[in-house]
């Protein structure tokens, strides 16, 4: 070790040991399991915190405004045009068999069961999951989260639970609006492109729906809301490595939440179809 002011300490002469392939794979597996465990703990606490005090009502309202009202324009626009394009795609097939009146049935079922919740989930994930991750990540790297803890506040209650609750409330509402606007888009396309009456379209679109279809769409939107908010929060709270880490977390939040939403959609669809048959 250097004993005079301007000496440079000698670096160690022994070379670091190279880990074996098995060790690297074991470490990677352990890290993955640890991440899943951390995510599960964060998700469970975000929900359990909602049932105990202190609660942050104003923060929840602010997040509802950001996630719900803020996402409304993209949900309205995309919903309308998805409904319209569904009619254009399916209508041309139905015309070949002279069954244009079935268009309303198909568009309604597809929007309520599948496209409404999934497209809304993916859009809100792209907009809000990334926003949550970058906001929380910035707070972590600038020590604001530590400052919050130092001031006696649980960041889980103050930052995570309001975002999760706000998503659980607003995403199903956004999905409902998206489906409704999609049906309007479908109706407009039916009237102008297929010469199908607006009344016929609406009557068939509503008549085909059963309670199980509405429940399927509602359940999916709830699950997607939970996924996009908790993944965003998890990625944000685990940021390491300054601004570069924040950027990485933001991208990861969108990628992971989108993939999780699509995977969850598959299993939920299978489950819903199974339950619809049984009940």
């Amino acid at each position, binding site marked *: 070790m250097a*004993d005079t002011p301007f000496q440079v300490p000698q670096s160690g002469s022994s070379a670091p040991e190279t880990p074996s392939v098995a060790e690297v794979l074991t470490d990677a597996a352990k890290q993955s399991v640890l991440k899943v465990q951390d995510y599960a703990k964060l998700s469970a606490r975000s929900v359990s915190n909602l049932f105990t005090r202190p609660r942050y009502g104003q923060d929840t309202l602010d997040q509802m405004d950001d996630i719900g009202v803020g996402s409304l324009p993209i949900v309205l626009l995309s919903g309308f045009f998805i409904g319209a394009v569904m009619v254009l795609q399916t209508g041309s097939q139905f015309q070949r068999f002279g069954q244009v009146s079935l268009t309303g049935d198909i568009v309604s079922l597809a929007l309520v069961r599948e496209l409404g919740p999934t497209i809304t989930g993916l859009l809100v994930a792209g907009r809000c999951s990334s926003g949550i991750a970058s906001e929380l990540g910035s707070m972590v790297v600038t020590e604001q989260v530590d400052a919050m803890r130092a001031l006696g506040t649980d960041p889980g209650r103050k930052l995570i639970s309001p975002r999760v609750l706000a998503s659980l409330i607003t995403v199903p509402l956004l999905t409902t609006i998206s489906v409704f606007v999609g049906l309007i888009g479908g109706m407009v396309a039916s009237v102008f492109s297929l010469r199908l009456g607006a009344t016929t379209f609406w009557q068939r679109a509503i008549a085909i729906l059963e309670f199980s279809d509405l429940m399927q769409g509602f359940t999916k939107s709830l699950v997607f809301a939970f996924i996009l908010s908790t993944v965003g929060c998890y990625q944000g709270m685990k940021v390491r490595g300054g601004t570069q880490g924040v950027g990485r977390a933001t991208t990861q939040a969108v990628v992971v939440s989108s993939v999780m939403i699509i995977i969850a959609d598959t299993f939920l669809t299978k489950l819903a179809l199974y339950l619809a048959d049984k009940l």
Partner: protein
Amino acid sequence: MASPPTPSLPPQSAVTIKFDDVWIGFDEGPILRGLTFSAQPGETLVLLGETGTGKTLALKIAAGLICPDRGTVQALGQDITGKSEEELLQFRRQIGFVFQEGALFDSLTVGENVAYRLVEDGADENRIAPQVREVLRFVELEHTADMLPSELSGGMRRRVSIARALVNRPPVVLYDSPTAGLDPITSQTIITLILRLRDIYRVTALMATHRLQDGFALANFHFDPKTRTVRRGPSEERTQPPITRFLVLREGHIYFEGRPEELLKSRDSYLQRFLI
């Protein structure tokens, strides 16, 4: 390597903060290796050391923000190493923590930042506003109450951070390099503020720094509340020396512990490097 001078520990009774054989490490190896020291009520401990010696870690452990791998930490009569996060949240309300870069909430105004702890405690709104004004006046930033942290200079942000830390008059304040990266004049303002806090409110303080002059300023000056000026020498009202002690951290443990004059007299080659 020169042998470290023998530390002169204060009596075990009446300690506000006590570290006993505290160890903590990360992937790159242990950072703190058996850190042991204690602070008496009203005392200011200056933690000196090179970058990476664990000064900030020691402060965060003292505040219960990080749990050590081994050893015990007692603060305000409680063993905080065995506490749950819920219990630690309550404990931290009695501790003021000034972060290196201020760590102000950037979406809140200065006034809201300072009022944060009071709002969290559910204090009466009529009580919050005057208290925030008083604390901002203490740091001479009353006019910034409605500004956002991004509109303030680095020194002003540190002063707001100090105001936020002391808004509920905590008995212990921990400063993490409060003058790092600031110009000499602003640094002097911050140190004067810490002096005032010490001599008016009698807080126990731990200050991590790599600037020796900050420690000597705390040791050699005092704030006279009557004349509201900073004066050289110890306060006349203070009868219980020492009020400022230096702890030099090296390789994860205390290398030197003692009064400023003992540090100045030391012929140890490592300590000499801080004095040049």
